[in-house]
């Protein structure tokens, strides 16, 4: 089974993983802003 399949939107899997982790950081940041804003 091929491991060479490229991910969508990103040229490498490594970049895809980084995007997922950056998204996590942004989500935590957004939640924090949400909490502060409404509290």
């Amino acid at each position, binding site marked *: 089974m091929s491991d060479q399949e490229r991910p969508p939107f990103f040229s490498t899997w490594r970049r895809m993983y980084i995007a997922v982790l950056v*998204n*996590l950081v942004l*989500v*935590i940041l957004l939640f924090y802003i949400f909490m502060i804003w409404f*509290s």
Partner: protein
Amino acid sequence: MSSIDWIVLVGTLLFIVVYGVWKSRGEKNIDDFLLADRTMPWYVVGISIMATQASAITFLSAPGQAYMDGMRFVQFYFGLPIAMVILCVTFVPIFHRLNVYTAYEFLEKRFDLKTRALTAFLFLVQRGLACGLTIYAPSIILSSILGWNIYYTNLFMGGLVVIYTVAGGTKAVSITQMQQMAVIFIGMLMAAIMIVYLLPENLSFSESLKVAGKMGKLNVIDFKFDLKNQYNVWSGLIGGLFLMLSYFGTDQSQVGRYLSGKSIGQSRLGLLFNGVIKIPMQFSILLIGALLFVFYQFHQPPLHFNNVEVEKINNSLLAPEYKALVAKNEQVFKEKQVYLDGLIQAIKSGDEEKSAAFGVLATSKQTEMTSLHSEVKKLMKKNDETAETNDTNYVFLSFVMRFLPAGLIGLLIAVIFSASMSSTSSELNALASTTVVDIYKRMFKQEGSDRHYLVVSRITTVLWGIYAILVAMFANQMGSLIEAVNKLGSLFYGTILGIFVVAFYFKRVKGAFVFYAALVAEAVVLYCFWIELTAFLWLNLIGCAAVVFISLILSGVSPVRVNET
């Protein structure tokens, strides 16, 4: 329930079952039955992974949890995206390349038969019981609120799942999970819209959130490091990471989902899809609970949400005491309205100082109501030692039954059924896979035909289905054992993950070392649990670290290594 609710409920469930059986019809082989012939695209893999994890309790419990305790539970999932990335890098390519049916098959290739057998056995014991509770947990709530017979509810829910899981195998499981998730999404969206619609007219959505925030229910993030605190950013990121790695990497009910992907890339995308969607989804469900809290600031909530227990106390000698607490609760609720009016006016005028002050006053009244809630729970226990006093899981469904219109009630009950069935089907499929591949085929009949294993897989699925329904039937006689069974998974997950981590990252360590390291690590985890050393999530890390550490020590001092080098 009205007849329109019954039509919506039965129609939705029958459509899902018939559609699943029809779409997965045709000649099958064992590969097709256990892994959908490894042909599933990423979105089916991703939704299947999410549907497997999200059981009925997720949708019943999470809004109730936010109502009682705020939204901090969402932090539990912060380790999930990191776990998805690690699985994509390590587990997925290896499982795919080795062409395994189960995660445990890999352990024999890497270590030996006894390590494979030990992990497969632990999985079967824990998941077999958990599968029964996946059926039982929503059944007990539905039977309490709707007055249904719990045995028929268990039988109906479990029976429907067995029909399509036996008929269509993994393909039917994945296809029905797509429909089930669609029902869940539509149902929860409608519930959220209805809650917002039912909020007071003078309160906008943003102002409602401010009321929730000022009263401490939007406590989404807590950066304070505290080992005893189950839900903060660090326990979620670190403890949650190890729990999610264990669950998604070593539990066959999840491994089977992404092994059905048609390529390594499609399996990876399915996992990453889950990594991106899961946290916002959980946040949305908790937000429904926070909005429900705001709704109940303006509508008198019951003192206790479990009607069965309320009826029991009402018909007991303690009824006068209970009624006094109810009257007191109504009195405090009325007093709270003054502060809530002040809070709303302050929010509308943008006066931060006043809104903070009124928020504190309203919260103090809410705390008084919480104390009365605790008192009524004690009263229930005094009346009946076995009383189910935790009503968190009843908050959402109680609202649905009291305030939603006909048709929507049926849809929301269909959501509960769909969520339970989507988890149960994956569990049955995984239990059958592990029993056939890791036990029957490996230890009893290695040279059977493909057709033979297919028949055995179907029989095994039926037998596990019967077992799960029986566990569900007898679960209400298990008392506090239920909680123990729920914790059982977390007690073993860390150790099992440790075995896999050693397998992947420490090539020098041999099977015998990791086997004995796992036994010692498990004893360490049980001891830590016994003395209540830390919050639950950290046990996953302790178990995993102990296996790695002890197996490295054993392989370091072993004469085998000396001979080898």
